[in-house]
């Protein structure tokens, strides 16, 4: 009897233990997610993610899977924090044919590629408002070049690259008179045109050069992607408003059952340009380049562009009918499937590249617009994904045969199978997802571990911050059959699109300092003994050095009201992570943040007499508080001599 009781007890204990374990494993859901995104203090993330800063005009750099923000790279907008766009050296980066434009709306980051795979050399991003493309150096994480796109009303379909980064593309969101001129808006159909630009990327230096533009009918060109593999010579561009409405587009541009994906053979375009089929057209635009050794931006004004007219270039461009106001256009890793996000469509149409080529060979056309043949829909379509969610926009790929499409209206990601077109999984997003991103997900070689949802609206997801709320990114695990939400985190501005790359590819080329030996800035002071102040008429040049924990000179007298005082400051440090700041009381420009080995210049126009302290604004050492000085400003008529020490 006793033995039986003991036995029963033992069983009870044993089974409770099992049950206890089970209930624990039931809780593992969230623990498991936490483990997957937890990067222990001191450990590093697996991926760099570059997210567009949207209306902030910047690019933000995050780590994945942790979602930690590392840096905001100044691109199209001034930053008083670093002096970008304020300093004499960087101001030129924001020069355009419309003057100095210190802000923009940044949309689509795009990594440079080699053989269709992100290579970690550069990141390109478009400015949607005042049409521009920037190139960022992924060794220094700084903007190195900005080129303006002429004959464009808004640079949205940009800056997607061809398979070996031969070109970045730029299609105009708003058609405008080309060249721009004073016409009645109601003359839209007659006078407004679209343009699609091909910007050549120098394979060594990365320098951008507007090679040619293609003049296209006045639709709204929305997004783009280059082909790869078999389709590598082609680029694809979505368009809407084939109705060519110029008012109340939300209704008037949504009439037609189908709009178009434009397929452009860029190899053929190169041939037509070489044969002289292009016409040189006057066009004003700026090309701004930051010379890293001179640490100085160089702005060049360009005055003409080569334009191809499809009528003169048979085989250059075809229209693929696509339902209905398509937004994204994404090419699968094999290069065969061209997926269009039919924003207002009930299906996701997938075109076949091989069918397109066959249809072109057979001239299987249903008409043409301004000399551009329209291929028969049935002859080019590979399949349609049924019930893909409402408002399908963008598609990325995992490299394992699946595609992931964002559905804006129904706030979800829909996973479907290439070839069978069947939906296999869906997951809600919070809320109103725009783009989505898989690391390498628009390339030949996706690192298909995560998909990130880039959400426009967060509403009740975070602590409320008044009427203005953050946008967000959501990290979703895609390694299993079911997608699993792991993490969400707020973003800088509206993160339209993003790109990610394994960290190891970038870390090995990461720049730590600017070498003093290579500093060719004309105002650099490479030895403290050369620190000085010079007057040239109304201009006072302060050639200053900064090291922990002093400026040289740090007492300056003889400045007068009405002078232009240029502080040229060289940070003489040569070790990683020792920047110095520079801030002057009342300086109506910006402060500066100067990296080791860098020279930056800020202009101060003192308007009042008195003593003006200046100091280092980036905590640099135990004696950081001591890193300061005084500038004395005297009356314009005074004869206080120039003096410094």
């Amino acid at each position: 009897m006793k033995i039986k009781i003991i036995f029963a007890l033992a069983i009870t204990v044993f089974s409770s233990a099992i049950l206890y374990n089970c209930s624990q494993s039931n809780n593992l859901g969230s623990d498991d997610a936490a483990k997957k995104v937890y990067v222990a203090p001191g450990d590093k993330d697996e991926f760099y993610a570059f997210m567009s800063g949207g209306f902030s005009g910047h690019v933000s750099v995050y780590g994945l899977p942790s979602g930690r923000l590392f840096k905001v790279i100044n691109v199209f907008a001034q930053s008083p924090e670093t002096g970008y766009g304020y300093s004499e050296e960087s101001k030129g980066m924001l020069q355009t044919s419309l003057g100095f434009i210190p802000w923009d709306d940044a949309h689509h980051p795009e990594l440079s590629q080699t053989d269709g795979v992100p290579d970690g050399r550069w990141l390109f991003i478009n400015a949607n408002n005042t049409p521009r493309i920037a190139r960022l150096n992924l060794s220094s994480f700084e903007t190195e070049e900005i080129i303006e796109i002429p004959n464009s009303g808004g640079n949205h379909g940009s800056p997607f690259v061809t398979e070996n980064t031969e070109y970045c593309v730029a299609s105009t969101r708003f058609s405008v008179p080309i060249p721009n001129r004073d016409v009645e808006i109601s003359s839209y159909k007659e006078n407004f045109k679209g343009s699609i630009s091909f910007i050549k990327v120098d394979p060594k230096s990365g320098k951008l050069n507007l090679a040619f533009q293609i003049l296209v009918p006045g639709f709204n060109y929305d997004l783009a992607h280059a082909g790869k593999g078999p389709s590598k010579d082609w680029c694809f561009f979505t368009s809407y408003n084939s109705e060519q409405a110029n008012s109340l587009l939300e209704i008037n541009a949504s009439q037609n059952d189908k709009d178009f994906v434009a397929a452009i053979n860029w190899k053929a375009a190169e041939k037509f340009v070489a044969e002289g089929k292009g016409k040189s057209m006057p066009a004003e635009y700026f090309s701004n380049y930051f010379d890293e050794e001179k640490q100085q931006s160089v702005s060049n004004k360009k005055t003409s562009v080569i334009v191809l007219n499809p009528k003169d270039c048979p085989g250059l461009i075809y229209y693929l009918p696509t339902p209905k106001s398509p937004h994204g256009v994404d090419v699968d890793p094999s290069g065969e499937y061209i997926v269009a996000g039919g924003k207002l469509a009930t299906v996701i149409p997938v075109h076949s590249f091989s069918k397109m080529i066959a249809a072109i060979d057979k001239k299987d056309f249903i008409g043409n617009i301004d000399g551009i043949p329209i291929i028969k829909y049935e002859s080019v379509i590979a399949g349609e994904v049924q019930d893909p969610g409402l408002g399908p926009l963008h598609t990325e790929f995992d490299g394992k045969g699946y595609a992931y499409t964002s559905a804006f209206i129904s706030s979800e990601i829909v996973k479907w199978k290439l070839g069978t077109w069947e939906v296999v999984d869906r997951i809600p997003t919070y809320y109103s997802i725009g783009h989505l991103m898989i690391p390498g997900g628009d390339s030949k070689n996706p690192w298909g571990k995560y998909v990130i949802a880039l959400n426009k609206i967060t509403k009740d997801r975070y602590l409320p911050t008044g009427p203005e709320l953050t946008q967000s990114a959501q990290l979703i695990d895609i390694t299993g059959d079911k997608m699993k939400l792991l993490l969400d985190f707020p973003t800088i501005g509206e993160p339209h699109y993003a790109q990610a790359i394994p960290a190891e590819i970038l870390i090995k080329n990461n720049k730590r300092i600017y070498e003093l030996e290579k500093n060719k800035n004309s105002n650099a002071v490479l030895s403290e003994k050369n620190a000085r102040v010079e007057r040239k008429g109304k201009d006072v040049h302060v050639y200053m050095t900064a090291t922990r924990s002093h400026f040289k000179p740090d007492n300056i007298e003889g400045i007068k009201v009405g002078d232009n005082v240029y502080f040229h400051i060289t940070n003489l440090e040569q070790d990683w992570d020792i920047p110095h700041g520079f801030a002057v009381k009342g300086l109506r420009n910006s402060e500066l943040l100067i990296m080791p080995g860098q020279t930056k210049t800020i202009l101060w126009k003192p308007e009042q007499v008195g003593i003006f302290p200046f100091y280092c604004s980036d905590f640099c050492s135990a004696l950081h508080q001591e890193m300061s000085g005084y500038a004395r400003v005297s009356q314009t008529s005074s004869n206080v001599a120039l003096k410094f020490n």
Partner: protein
Amino acid sequence: MKNKSVVLFVLFTLIVTACGGGEEKKESASSESFKAKVAAKLGLTEFEFENGVGPIKEKLNIPAEIDKKMAAEGLKIFESKCMSCHKLDEKYTGPALRDVTKRRTNEYIMNMILNPEEMTKRHPEARKLLGIHATQMTFQNVTQEDTRKLLEYLRSESK
């Protein structure tokens, strides 16, 4: 029996610790091994204790006579990369350097220039100086060759 051995052990430990504590005055035939013991206590080799921690791991064969060309090249580097923190005859951000070649071995000076962060963490002299000057000396992106020239310049300025 047990108690006795505990007492013995404690005594022994005290003796060893006292020795390791560094009675440097005792100049004796055993001073070499004594230095080694002090170094070992600090987690350094005897070489490192004398010549610093860094890429210079053995005594360099430096002739007594100054190489003037090398010293002149060293001055140029000094003016660009060192002068904003060091003067020869007065304390600035860091210590005055006129007599540094008398205070330190050649190899110590080179290791301090090439590996300042580890030096201030691990070497007692460098750590002491960090306490006095309060600003961490940094590596100024110089090569070993540059450093040799800097040393030659400092040797040329020594009185």
